[in-house]
């Protein structure tokens, strides 16, 4: 498998091609096409139920599309076209693809049976094959980065929501992902600690070249961090562009009304 750094830089990190996702009769995404270039920070906005979470879950292979194709670095993620037919790829292939992708969840989902450090090193040791010493060292660096030095041996349940989410960010970064998926990572937090988590993500965005796909209602954050905003409605991208344009001069009525609703303006 070619290292992503050997790839033609114009190959998009994520590419959706005619993706359709249904839950029973409910068609959530239909004929969805979009690309995310490598190093891009793309924020998905749109009303609740418009399918933003579903898109991230499709990329993380937590859901499977019913039609269409998703490519990561130009490689098919779960399905490929063979002789005009849509063919499911083996679990082993999906596993390899997953290693390039990290995700931070709204509900943190730290492992409660492990300490903070154990959460951070579990996958690096057992999936990436790092030595325990290396993984712990890297874990320490990441803890310092998210401002949690000294919490190595703490149990997740003894941490505040904001601290848990910072550990979850560190845990995702410990896998050194090329793509990071962030699904409303501050929605479960008390308003006064949202800032500390966003500050860390701003720092990650500044200091790395990780491709980010972000779902958030924090429009200031979206504006600071992302270089592109995609507005979803009815399972389609109805408008996209740089944050400045979308937030100040949207062309679509629905974007305008959505923004005025979330910005309370």
């Amino acid at each position: 498998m070619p290292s992503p750094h050997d790839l033609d830089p114009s190959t998009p990190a994520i590419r959706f091609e005619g993706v359709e996702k249904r839950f029973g009769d409910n068609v959530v995404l239909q004929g969805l096409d979009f690309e995310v270039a490598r190093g891009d920070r793309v924020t998905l906005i749109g009303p609740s139920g418009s399918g933003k979470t579903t898109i991230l879950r499709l990329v993380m292979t937590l859901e499977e599309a019913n039609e269409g194709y998703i490519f990561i670095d130009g490689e098919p993620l779960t399905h490929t076209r063979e002789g005009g037919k849509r063919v499911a790829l083996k679990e082993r292939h999906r596993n390899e693809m997953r290693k390039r992708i990290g995700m931070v969840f709204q509900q943190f989902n730290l492992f409660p049976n492990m300490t903070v450090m154990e959460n951070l090193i579990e996958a690096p040791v057992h999936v990436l094959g790092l030595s325990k010493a290396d993984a712990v060292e890297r874990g320490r660096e990441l803890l310092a980065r998210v401002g949690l030095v000294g919490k190595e041996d703490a149990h997740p349940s003894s941490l505040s929501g904001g601290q848990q989410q910072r550990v979850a960010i560190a845990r995702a970064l410990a896998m050194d992902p090329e793509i990071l998926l962030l699904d409303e990572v501050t929605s479960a937090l008390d308003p006064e600690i949202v800032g500390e988590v966003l500050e860390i993500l701003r720092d990650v965005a500044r200091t790395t070249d990780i491709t980010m796909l972000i779902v958030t209602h924090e429009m200031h954050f979206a504006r600071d961090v992302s270089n592109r905003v995609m507005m979803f409605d009815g399972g389609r991208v109805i408008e996209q562009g740089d944050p400045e344009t979308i937030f100040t001069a949207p062309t679509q009525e629905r974007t305008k009304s959505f923004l005025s609703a979330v910005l309370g303006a």
Partner: protein
Amino acid sequence: MNDDLSALWAAIPQVLEGMGITVTLTVLGSALAFVVAVVFGLMARSRTLVVRGFARVVIEFFRGTSLVVQLYLFFFVLPQLGWEMSPITAGVLAFGLNYGAYGAEVVRGSIAAVPAGQWEASTALSLSPVHRMRRIIIPQAWALMIPSLNNLLIQLLKGTAIVGFITLFDLTVALDKLRIATDLFFAYGFGLVLYFVLAYILTLGMNALEVRAKHRLGQGESLREALSFRTPDARGSVA
């Protein structure tokens, strides 16, 4: 009463012998039941239809056909089909498979009750299914399943009181001998208290396991703290 006590004294070897059988059946039966519960509980979650179907048939058979019938199945029927076994073996098999089948449902249910986010976070970290089950899911499911397993363990202990049916000399049979030597209320009062104490000891042990398992998930106090001496007041404020 004095006569009763001296008769009890005389009957102590018999009571001990009976209790030995009861404890042996409980220990071996629950050990087998635990293995059956884990194996079939995991098989019942398999994505392969044949594996899952086989597990379901075995579980429903042993849950649905009555413990006593199974006891006779191993004691009378299998020997007639050419599988000779001692009454103890027949008892251990019946208890292990019967309560193991109930336990399999507990195991399956507890695994399913581990929040979806834990499964998804494991996938997002590319942990393999086996690794995920062993390191993430089972430790959390374990804490969930202990109370139900404790119930089953007590049921199993009480269930062993029927092994007199297959000629074993257990505590219940010993009590009948004691009844003849003393009197009904003395013998059975004594015997019920013995069973109660056994059940109580098992429950204490399982509670300790539960405290430890929960503490490992960051819930509640450690086992050492839970066992430490405190005034009723302090305990009241903890609860």
